Structures are given as structure tokens and as C-alpha cells.
């Protein structure tokens, strides 16, 4: 088990390195750089900027240097000093901008994850045990429906309904009075009141998928000989179900963490733009538009790292849950 953990951790290092390169290439792909984008933006507002100033800025930001040098500056800053570089657009260090937003992204994703599991687990079990019952059909239909509705559309519809019928605006994660306030119980409660909409919106698709997965896994397990043999030893159906097939179906269910978390993190980007949540999503979008490369790059990099950690946690959890790996 310890060997497994060490191997798994070591494996993450080249992976992260490769991701940082890919990320850097992606943010370098658009033609031009932040300053050409800035000039274009100013030009569209009929303002001009002195080419000398631009050249000065370009030198200051190091944008005139070869790509490899720029990459090295960026990555060595992160590795050695935890410095993610400077946001050109905000004229602030990237780390100052992203940490609070990243934390909120994680909080939203984790709460959604718990919501998804809490809903999908019992419904999946019910659906499998009562296969082809009315309840199963309803769960199946809503499952497919949940997969078919784009999350941003769901967010829009929810916003429309609450605006239209309750006259409420439900964007954001905080009420105005708490927006810039320090953390307090009041602020936490306020967060929770706002949280349910993004959680529901974000979780619907994954919940639907997990219900299908749980159902399929459990149906698989229910027909396994060891379940039949346990029944032949006189166990009652409920006890049998909970002890054997559900336990076995738990493993593939946990392994879904590996893709549910990235899915949530990435879905959160779109949803938070629609719901104007103070998470990384809207920041990334504006950074990409402005070609604010260190900001955009750092966000993509950190989200990828989050994903890697998610898969790591799921692998470790899985190994711990599976006696074949634990004792192997």
C-alpha cells in the first residue's frame, strides 16, 4: 500500500510538468500578446498609445524574449517562490487574484460532489433493485434528462423562474452586505443560502450519470454468484443487498471521483459565468480575452493540478477500499 502510494505520487511529477508545458503552449497559441490585444482594444475605443511605451512595456513584461525563456521564468517562479507571475490586465500578482477564487471553486465543487453522491447513491440502488419498476423508469428518464440539459441553460431557467415568479436575483455567492465583509457565521449562512443553486445546477448532470453508473454496477453485482450463494445461506434480501452487492458497487462508484471532480471543476467555469459567482470561471474568461497569459495559464494549471489531486485521492481511496490492492 505504501509502495503504491509512493509510486502514485512520483507519477504525478512528470504529469504536472507535462501539463504545465501544454498549458503554456495553449496560452501562447493566440496570435500576438497582451500588448497587441491591449492596443487593439484601445484602438477600438479610438485611443492610441505610443509605440515607444508599448515597446517599453513589452521589455518590462519580458514578452520580447523567446518562449522558452518566458516559460522558464514562469515555471521557476512557481516552483521556487510560489510566484505565479504578474497579471498584466489587473496589474497585480496572479496569486493575489486567484487564491480566494480558487478556494471558492473548490468549496463549490466539493459541496456539489457531496450533493451528487448523496442523491445518486440511494436512487441508483433503488433503481437497480427495483429494475423495470415505475420508480426505475422515472429515475432513468430524469437521469437521461439531466444528462441532456446543458448546465448553463438550467442555470438560466432557474434564474428566470426566480426572477419571474419570486422577483429575486440569485446570482453570486454572497448578498451585497457580506460581499467584502470578513468571514463570520452570518457570512457563512449567507453563502449557504446562495450555494444551493450552483450546487443543483452543477450537480444535475453528474448526478444523472452517477445514477446510471450505480444502477449498472449494482445490476452487475446482483447477478454475481456470491450474492446467490449468500442468499442460499439464508440472509434476508435487505441485509444481503447492503452487505454484499452495495459494498462491491461502492468501488466503481468511488472511482467515479476521478472524472466527476474534473467534470465539476470544468462545469463550474461555465455555470459561474452565468451565475456570476466569484470563482475562477469569469476570471479565466476575461483573462483569455485579454491575453493576460500568466493569469490564464496559472488558472488552467491550478485547475489541472486540482484534477490530478482528485484522481490521486480517488485512486488511493479505491486501493484502500479494495482488499485485492490493499493486501497485494
Amino acid at each position, binding site marked *: 500500500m505504501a509502495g503504491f502510494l509512493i509510486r502514485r505520487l512520483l507519477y504525478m511529477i512528470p504529469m504536472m510538468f507535462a501539463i504545465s508545458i501544454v498549458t503554456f503552449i495553449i496560452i501562447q497559441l493566440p496570435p500576438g500578446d497582451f500588448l497587441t490585444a491591449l492596443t487593439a482594444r484601445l484602438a477600438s475605443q479610438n485611443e492610441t498609445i505610443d509605440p515607444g511605451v508599448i515597446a517599453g512595456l513589452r521589455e518590462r513584461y519580458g514578452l520580447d524574449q523567446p518562449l522558452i525563456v518566458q516559460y522558464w521564468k514562469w515555471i521557476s517562479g512557481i516552483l521556487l517562490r510560489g510566484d505565479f507571475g504578474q497579471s498584466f490586465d489587473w496589474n497585480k500578482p496572479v496569486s493575489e487574484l486567484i487564491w480566494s477564487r480558487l478556494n471558492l471553486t473548490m468549496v463549490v465543487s466539493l459541496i456539489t460532489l457531496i450533493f451528487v453522491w448523496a442523491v445518486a447513491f440511494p436512487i441508483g440502488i433503488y433503481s437497480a433493485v427495483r429494475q423495470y419498476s415505475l420508480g426505475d423508469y422515472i429515475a432513468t428518464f430524469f437521469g437521461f434528462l439531466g444528462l441532456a440539459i446543458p448546465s448553463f441553460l438550467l442555470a438560466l431557467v432557474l434564474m428566470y423562474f426566480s426572477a419571474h415568479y419570486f422577483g429575486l436575483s440569485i446570482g453570486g455567492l454572497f448578498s451585497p452586505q457580506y460581499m467584502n465583509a470578513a468571514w463570520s457565521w452570518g457570512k457563512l449562512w449567507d453563502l449557504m443560502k446562495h450555494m444551493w443553486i450552483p450546487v443543483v445546477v452543477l450537480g444535475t448532470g453528474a448526478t444523472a450519470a452517477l445514477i446510471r453508473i450505480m444502477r449498472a454496477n449494482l445490476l452487475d453485482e446482483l*447477478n*454475481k*454468484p*456470491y450474492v*446467490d*450463494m*449468500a*442468499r*442460499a*445461506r*439464508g*440472509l*434476508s*434480501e435487505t441485509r444481503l443487498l447492503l*452487505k*454484499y452487492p452495495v*459494498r*462491491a458497487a461502492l468501488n466503481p462508484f468511488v472511482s467515479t471521483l476521478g472524472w466527476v471532480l474534473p467534470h465539476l471543476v470544468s462545469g463550474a467555469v461555465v455555470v459561474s459565468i452565468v451565475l456570476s459567482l466569484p470563482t475562477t470561471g469569469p476570471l479565466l474568461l476575461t483573462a483569455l480575452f485579454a491575453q493576460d497569459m500568466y493569469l490564464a495559464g496559472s488558472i488552467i494549471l491550478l485547475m489541472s493540478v486540482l484534477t490530478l489531486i482528485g484522481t490521486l485521492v480517488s485512486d488511493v481511496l479505491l486501493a484502500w477500499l*479494495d*482488499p*485485492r490492492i490493499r*493486501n497485494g
Partner: protein
Amino acid sequence: MLQTPMSIKQMSAVVRERGGMPSPLIEVDNLRTHFFGNAGLVKAVDGVSFSIPRGKTVCVVGESGSGKSITGRSILNQVPRGGRIVSGAIRYRPDPAQPPLDIVKLDPRGKEMRALRGAQIGLISQEPMAALSPFHTIGNQMVEVIRLHLKMGRREAREHAIETLALVGIPRPAERMESYSFQFSGGMRQRVCIALALSCRPKLLIADEPTTALDVTTQANILDLLSRLQADFNLSVLFVTHDLGVVAEIADEVVVMYLGKVVETGDVDTIFHAPAHPYTKALLQSVPRMHAGGATRLPTIDGMVPSPFERPQGCGFHPRCAMAVHGLCDREVPEPITISEGHVASCLLHGENP
């Protein structure tokens, strides 16, 4: 030689009257278990009657599709999905002095039936690996069933489980309680399954092809173990197999099945040396013998086992039977005929003078 059709029920009554033979542990009477699938009705077990004496081994033998395994499961009232016992009776009489209990009448999921499973009737199956949960230790699974049926405390149940594991020849049983099924070898795994099935000291063990997946040397060990346990516990065993060698090795009585029906029953020596049904005869002849010289042609049975959806009219075996009489075997369904005491065959050629 008695030559009148007679049902098992009448017959066993006769036997009981005649000489103080104790009543059998299980009497299966005209059992029908059918499967209702999309592709049509499959009469997997179609009017099967036989009995299992106390402390003896009854082998149900047949080729694939004969309904032998479903017969075994029916006794547990635990038929796979899509199937159910349609009619018939399975009279279980744990105490000869008491009236029998009809298993067919019990709710398959009900409390009474569950109290029999594991406690009074144990089951072992073909795939010992698949029969054990990969997520629970052997000890966990054993203690569970012991506590369920024997109402023991945790510690007592554990002692009992270790004792049972030792009984089936698991070395260092106390240590192996903490092991998982995948940590055992094939033969040891089947021993664990036997221990699980016998942990509540049932009266009947249903063994469904328990040695088919094992190597021949391991099979020998398991067969010996079963014989020993049977003697020790006065266990009745219903042994389902397709291997006539295994039947000869361990059976006291043999039930030969073909297409969901019993074609012949009798004690093992009679079945092997004086079979009455053409199918039994042909089946025995078609097995290659170790002690016969090679290079001779094996006698065969023509054709193939028919698909379960297209059962032939009349006697199910007639299209493959060398002795079939046109106009008789393809029309009439044979009734069981008593050939001699305890030897019954369902063949029209024995019914009237051929």
C-alpha cells in the same frame, strides 16, 4: 419384476410399508420449474420425482440442458431470475416422527424459507472463486451465517467457524479467518465454500458440480473430503454433476435426467451395471474408459441435445434413441415404471411387452 406404472409417491409408500426403511429426508414429487423468458417458455424441470435418503448421496446426472442444476436450486426454493416452481412438492422431513414440510409452499423470500437455507440445507457450487465475496474476509462471511442461524455470540461464533475450517482441512484456520478468497488456491477455496455451507451443520448439502472447475488431483481430494464429512455428520448430499466417473465414485443413488425429466433412478450399482433406460445405457457406453484399450470406436448417441425451446413430442429422447418405436415413442409421454425395488425408469419400452 414389477411392471405396472407407479409414481414415486406410491412407491415410497410401498417401501415404507414393506420393511421398516426410514422415511427419506427429502421427497421431490412431480416438481416443475419453468422459465418465462422473452424467447419463450423453457420447462427446465418438468415433472421430476425422486427422494434423498438420510445420510446418503444422491447424484443427479445429465448433460447440459437436462435441468439438473435447476432441480438442485428448486430444493432451496431459490430459482434463478425468470424462473419459478410451477407445481409439485418438495417434502422435507428433518424429524422422521414429524409430518413433512413442503418447501414449495413456502415463500421463496420469506422467513421460514430463509431459516432453512444455510441452517438445514447448505449449497456449494461450481466456481468457488465467484461464490465468495472478494470484499469480505472468510471469517466475516462465516461468522455472519453462524450468528444468523445458531444464535451464537461473536466470540463463540468465531470459535465455531475456526473449528469448521479445521474440519474441512484448512491449515492454520485461526489465521486464515482473516484471509480473503483470492488469497486461497482453487482447492482450498472450495474447502472454504464447503466450510461455509456446513458451518451450521445442515442435514442436506446440495453440491452443484463442485469439482468441475478443479483439476483432477484436487477433485480427488474434495471428493474424499465430502465422503468423510458425510460419514461424520450423517449428511445427506444431493450431488449434481455431468461426470459419470464422479458419480460412480461417490453416489449411493443416481437420478439420470434428460430434457428436464427423470429418465431413470436407482442405486449406483444398478444404474451402472443394469441400466434400463436406453439413454442411460448409451450415455454409459459413450464414456471413454481408462482401463479399456484405446483405438476402438466409442459407441455414441446420435444427434444432439435438442434446444430447450423445441422439445420433441412423446418421449424426449426418441429422436436419438436407437430402440425408439415409431408410432409409440414419438406420441406417448413415458410414465415411470418400477423395474425392481428402488429402480425406476421412464421408458415406454418397459411399460408393455416390447
